[in-house]
Every structure is written in structure tokens, then in C-alpha cells.
């Protein structure tokens, strides 16, 4: 059995992976948005402060002065406890008041729109707003730059807090999604559990199909189980039948053997005894052949079902079978006439198929007239086939279905020893190979038996 894994855990893992990815995405996007929002909030306050100061820039006694409004810096203290710097200087760089080394940045184009930028000052990152103001001094126009700067701790904290609460919400969703996924998966797997319970609750001899209501996705599984149960039932039936009939059939020749032995014991003269011994031998022969064939059928049936399929040449199989039975055929003066197409390829188990072909040939030798010939034909094509034709009595149409059953022989079997298992084996092997067996009349007389296979290409 391969290593087990949990469908539930795998589904849940994949779902949670997707959801945690989404949560991270949510955190990052909210952080970006919150960062921009915080920037714009800080810019608004800084800009208002810079413009408020710019409005207080004026000329007093020939020099530029500024009356710093209290609110301009006080308002910066309302949002948080950040450090505040300012610098008021002419565009030429002449300091009017404030922190001399604070950078002013670029010159804003318009008086009512300050420029904003971020820089490093006195070991901290600061956001700077620079406003401009034009003023006339002694007939000359002088531009004054007003820069207000603030560190970003409070706004950074704000951004982080917003992003963290977003991440919290994301994690909440993650937990909720996990819970819902768990419930959903449990519900989805319920039919499987029901099937398991239904199978576990069964008696060992209950082969009826499962009646569980299954969703469309699970229905093939139920069908497959039912199919398997049906085949199992058939196999068990067949074995049961085989055992019953085998017991019955073997009992008969053994009883005959016993009777002959008793007769031989009672007889006093050698004549009767020799005749009895011949009969006993014949009964023993029959019993032996029957046993061999029954065991061979059981073996062949097993092989046909289980053995691995290999690519085989039908012509090669026919030649091998013919060579195996050459001696038996010669004893009756029968020839094999082979007409074999080499391209006939099939998939199958060699031993089972050889046994089937040998059985057919054996029948043809047994039931055909002596000093005759048996035709063996192999045809390639979409459905490769092998046909064996004799000139014996043939099988009447109404008996053709019956000859495939076990221990049954055709109507004209006198004089030949046979178990009646031959064609039954053939049929079983062909069924296992998904092939067909057909009985036809041979012209002018006799029987033609055709074994038709599926093309190997159909079942890769």
C-alpha cells in the first residue's frame, strides 16, 4: 500500500496557502494606501503651517522680517510628538530666521501651493513643506522661502497601526476561511464515509450492489465498487459450480473403476479378468484425463485473469500449438494445413492462449475423420483471428451454446475420450482476453471454430 495522505489536510493546506497569500497582499496594499494617506495628512498640516508663516512675512524698516504665528508650530504638535524644524530664508540663501542648515528643496512655482519632499535631517527622516512669498524691498522683488519640517514617527506609527489592523482582519478571515473550509470538506467527504460504513457493515456473502446515494463525483467510485463486487460474485459462483460438478464428475468414473475391480475379483477365469482389467484401465484413463484437464482449466482460468499481457504473434502461437499436437495428429493420419498471416499481433498470456488453441486442435483431431486434414488459418487486420476447421460431424446449431459449458460434449462423441472441459476452457480464456469464440459450419461438412481478438492498439 502506498503512503497515505489526507485529502482534507491537503485541501485545507492549499486553501489556507491561498488565503494567507491574500492576507499578506491585503497587508501590503493597505500599508501602501495608509502610507500615502498619512503622507497626505502630514503634507496638509505642514503646508498649512508653511503658508501661515508665509503670510506673516513682511517688510519692517527696510528689512524682511516674519512674525512667526504661534499656531503654525503648535498645530504640528497636535498630530503627535514629532520634532519640528523651520527655516525662513531668501531664495539667495540668506537666513532670516530658523534652523540654518535645514534644506529648502526646490523653489515652488506658485505662492499658494507648497512643495513637499522627504529628506534626512539631524539623524531623523523628516517631511518638508516649502512655500514661497515674493516681497518688494527697495524697488527690488525678493523671493522668500519658508520651509517647515517634521519628523515622521507619529505618521509612521499610524501607517503601521492601520496596516496591522488590516493584517488582523486578514488573519481573522484566514481563520474563518479555515473553519469554513474544514466544514465544507467534511461535508464533501461524507458520502465517502457513508460508502465505507456501508461496505464495513456488509455480511461476507452479501454481493448485492451498493445502494448509497452518491454525488456525481463519487458515483464512478460506487459503480466501480459494484462492478468489482459483481465480478467477485461471478468468480465465486464459477468456483462453487466447478467444485460441485468436479466432485460429481470424478465420482462417476471412480464408481465405475470400483465396480470393475469388484467384478474382476469375483470372476474365476482369466478371460473375464482381462476384459475387466481393460475396462478398469479405460476408467482410470478417463479419470486421469478429467483430473488433468480440470486442474489445467483452473490454472488457465487463473492465469487468463491475472497474468500480465504481452505482445504476441498469433501465427507463432498457431505454429507452436500445431507442433505440440503433431504426434497425436499423426496417430490418426491427420495433417495440419497452415495458412498464417504474420502481422497478426495481439496482447495476451502465452500459456493460457496456447492451452486454448491446443484444446481446439485436440477437438479437431478427435472428432475429425481419420486420414484427413485440419486447416489452421490466421488473419491479421483490425480484429486478428485464428480459425481451425475440421471435417467431422460438426455441432448442430441448437447445441452450439451448450458445448461451452463444463463437462458437456457434442452429440457425436462416441469412441473418443474427452472430459467435456475443452471448449469451456477456450471460452474462459477468450473472455479473459476480451475476445470472442464463434462456431460455424465448415463446407462441405465439419466445424470451423474462430477465435477473434481485439486489436492490441485498442488497449495500450
Amino acid at each position, binding site marked *: 500500500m502506498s503512503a497515505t495522505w489526507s485529502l482534507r489536510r491537503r485541501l485545507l493546506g492549499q486553501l489556507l496557502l491561498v488565503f494567507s497569500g491574500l492576507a499578506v497582499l491585503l497587508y501590503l496594499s493597505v500599508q501602501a494606501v495608509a502610507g500615502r494617506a498619512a503622507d497626505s495628512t502630514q503634507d496638509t498640516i505642514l503646508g498649512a503651517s508653511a503658508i501661515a508663516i508665509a503670510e506673516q512675512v513682511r517688510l519692517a524698516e527696510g528689512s524682511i522680517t516674519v512674525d512667526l504665528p504661534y499656531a503654525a508650530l503648535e498645530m504640528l504638535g497636535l498630530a503627535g510628538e514629532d520634532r519640528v524644524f523651520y527655516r525662513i530664508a531668501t531664495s539667495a540663501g540668506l537666513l532670516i530666521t*530658523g534652523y540654518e542648515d535645514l534644506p529648502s528643496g526646490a523653489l515652488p512655482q506658485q505662492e499658494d501651493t507648497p512643495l513637499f519632499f522627504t529628506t534626512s535631517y539631524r539623524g*531623523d527622516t523628516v517631511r518638508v513643506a516649502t512655500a514661497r512669498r515674493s516681497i518688494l524691498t527697495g524697488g527690488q522683488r525678493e523671493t522668500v522661502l519658508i520651509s517647515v519640517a517634521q519628523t515622521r514617527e507619529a505618521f509612521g506609527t499610524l501607517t503601521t497601526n492601520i496596516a496591522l489592523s488590516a493584517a488582523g482582519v486578514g488573519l481573522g478571515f484566514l481563520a474563518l476561511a479555515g473553519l469554513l473550509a474544514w466544514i465544507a470538506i467534511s461535508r464533501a467527504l461524507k458520502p465517502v464515509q457513508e460508502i465505507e460504513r456501508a461496505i464495513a457493515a456488509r455480511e461476507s456473502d452479501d454481493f448485492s450492489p451498493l445502494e448509497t446515494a452518491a454525488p456525481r463525483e463519487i458515483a464512478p467510485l460506487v459503480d466501480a465498487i459494484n462492478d468489482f463486487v459483481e465480478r467477485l460474485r461471478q468468480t465465486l459462483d464459477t468456483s462453487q459450480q466447478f467444485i460441485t460438478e468436479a466432485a460429481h464428475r470424478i465420482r462417476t468414473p471412480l464408481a465405475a473403476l470400483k465396480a470393475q475391480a469388484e467384478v474382476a475379483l469375483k470372476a474365476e477365469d482369466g478371460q473375464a479378468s482381462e476384459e475387466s482389467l481393460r475396462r478398469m484401465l479405460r476408467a482410470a484413463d478417463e479419470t486421469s484425463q478429467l483430473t488433468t484437464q480440470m486442474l489445467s482449466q483452473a490454472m488457465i482460468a487463473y492465469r487468463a485473469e491475472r497474468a500480465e499481457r504481452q505482445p504476441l504473434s498469433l501465427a507463432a502461437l498457431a505454429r507452436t500449438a500445431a507442433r505440440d499436437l503433431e504426434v497425436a495428429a499423426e496417430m490418426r493420419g491427420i495433417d495440419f494445413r497452415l495458412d498464417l498471416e504474420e502481422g497478426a499481433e495481439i496482447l495476451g498470456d502465452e500459456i493460457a492462449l496456447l492451452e486454448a488453441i491446443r484444446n481446439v486442435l485436440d477437438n479437431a483431431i478427435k472428432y475429425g475423420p481419420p486420414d484427413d486434414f485440419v486447416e489452421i488459418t490466421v488473419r491479421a487486420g483490425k480484429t486478428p483471428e485464428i480459425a481451425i476447421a475440421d471435417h467431422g460431424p460438426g455441432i448442430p446449431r441448437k447445441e452450439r451454446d451448450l458445448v461451452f459449458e463444463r463437462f458437456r460434449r457434442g452429440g457425436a462423441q462416441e469412441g473418443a475420450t474427452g472430459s467435456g472441459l475443452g471448449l469451456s476452457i477456450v471460452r474462459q480464456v477468450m473472455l479473459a482476453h476480451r475476445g470472442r469464440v464463434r462456431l460455424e459450419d465448415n463446407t462441405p461438412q465439419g466445424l470451423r471454430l474462430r477465435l477473434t481478438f481485439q486489436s492490441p492498439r485498442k488497449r495500450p
Partner: protein
Amino acid sequence: MNRLCAFFLTLLWVLSAGPQAKAVEIEDRRSYPALNEDAAASTLHIIGTTEAEAMEGLIRAYRALHRDIAVVYHQATSRSVYQAVEQVEAANGASYDLAISSAMDLQIKLVNDGRARQHRSVATARLPRWATWRDRIFGFTREPAVIAYNLAAFAEEAVPQSRFELVNLLRREPERFKARIATYDPNISGLGYLFATQDSLQSDTYWRLMEIFGNLSAELSCCSGEMLDRLEKGEIALAYNVLGSYAQARRDAGAQIGIVLPRDYTLLMVRSALIPATSDNAGTAGSFIDFLVSEEGQRIIEHEAFLSPSLPEGDDGTLLPIRLGPGLLVYLDALKRRAFLSEWASAVTERR
């Protein structure tokens, strides 16, 4: 030759313009050796504007809790305290570990310019918002700016309870108060400047009041102590914007003076402590701050150091603590200061 000349000139300029480490003027110095002299761990150097006398009780109580620490208290003006912390290089080799000052604006500037060290503790976390900024400055007193008066001078008359009433009284009886009233000179007193600027932010009544002070040739003083001296002696009848904690201490000592917390609003000065960035004993300094804001420290401040007289129960909205925040930087601006003092002069000095 020219190049050499230029070099020496540059050198001269660099030397003269470089940070000038001026020696900090110390008015009073008191040393308190560690109680447990064998295990003396460190010496805490405090520089402060608070009178050494007032600090003594606090320092002794602190030393009783931290027996292995010696304390040296250096008393100086608020400008000197500012300079001592602002100078990156310590003037006399030893750096100060704690700076205590009533000049809230200068203290805020030190923090804003990155001269103070962060300190966080359970004790400081309990401080109200107006009493701390950036976890670097910690207010530990609330001292009102009050109207103090000589009891004898107001024996037969109701004492004005607000600025408006004071303005009316002074207008009604100018002869009685001519040259007999006093207030801070904001030109020479940092605290006086702080009170004056904050007053000017609160109402226009302040300017009307100052004009009358000018008209009545009010005395301009450097410090609360001096005004209280003159009040006690009866040389003046009334002083405006006196530090309430000092007035309370005088009255408790038996001086015949009265105190009015103006009903329209009363400014509260917050005395604050910070740890200079140059301190090499910041942990001990932090423990001293924690002690100042602790229950015991506050009890001593109220009952022994007389730094914070009992305020009226329940705040009815007239008590206005001056917020520790960047707004205080505005009046430190040189242009702003010049403009304010010029306006003040035209209101007061030039009318005398």
C-alpha cells in the same frame, strides 16, 4: 604666499566660529555622598534652576531609596542649564546627567534639537499628556502664575479676582498704585518671558493690563523672590505673575501676603526634567525622574519642597497648564522675541 595667508585666515575663522564651549556659571553646588559609601555605585550630577534649598528634601529622600548613589546638585540660571545641555562637549570634563528647569521653552528646544535622551518607565507612562513630550521631557510640578498682594494694602478693600477686575481697580485708583505694583521684566527673566507670551496668547486684556502697568510706572523685576521680598516689606502693594509656589512658601513661613489664582484663567508652569544626550549615567537619571513623578516624590514636592501649592479641588477650566510641545519654540525665534519685546516695551517701558 597668498595661499599661506588664506590658509591662516581660514584657520583663524574656523577657530573663532567653532563651537565655543563657554564655562557654565554655577550659582550653588551641593554634594550628597552616597549613604552606603562602601558600595558607592555612581554619582548623579543634576543641573537645575530650582533653588538648592527646595531640592534638598527630594534628593535626601531619593538617596534613602538608592543608598549607593551620590548626588551633586548644581544650581544655575535657566540660560546656563540650556547651555550646559546644548554644548555637545562638556565644558569641565564632567557631563550632567539630569537637567531640571522651569524654562519650558528652552527645555522643549533641547528635546526638539535632539539633545535629550529617551526614558520610558511604568512611572512616566502614568503622566498626563501635557506633562511629557516624546518620552524625553517630564513635567513634575504644576506651579501657577498668581497675583500676590500685601495683606495690609488690601485691608479695607476687596482683592481683584481676575485680570478684568485688576484692570478696573488700577484705572479707578491710579494714585494709590502708582509705583506700587510689580511684574516680571521679560527682557531679563526667562520665566517672565514665558508667562508674558502665554498671557498674550490667552487674551487682549493682558495688553490693556500692561499698558496700565506702564502708565503706573510698575516695577520690573528679575525674579519672583525679589517681588515677594518687596511685597513682604510693604514697599509694593501687588505683584502680577508671581510664581505661586514661592508665594505659598513665603506665606507658610508667616509673610503677610495674599495669593489670588486669577479666575479668568491661571497659567500653570510645568517644571520639567530631561536626561541630556551626553549623560553617561542615564539609568540613574531615569530612576531620579521616576522618583520625581512617583507618589512619594509628589508628596514631598507638595509638602516639603513647596514647589506645587495645593490647587483648588477640581479643575473648573481656569487652570491652564502650558503645554509641553513644539508651539513653545515659536517665542524662542529671535525675530519673534525681538518683535514681542518691542511690543512689550511700547506698552510698558515707554510709558513710564
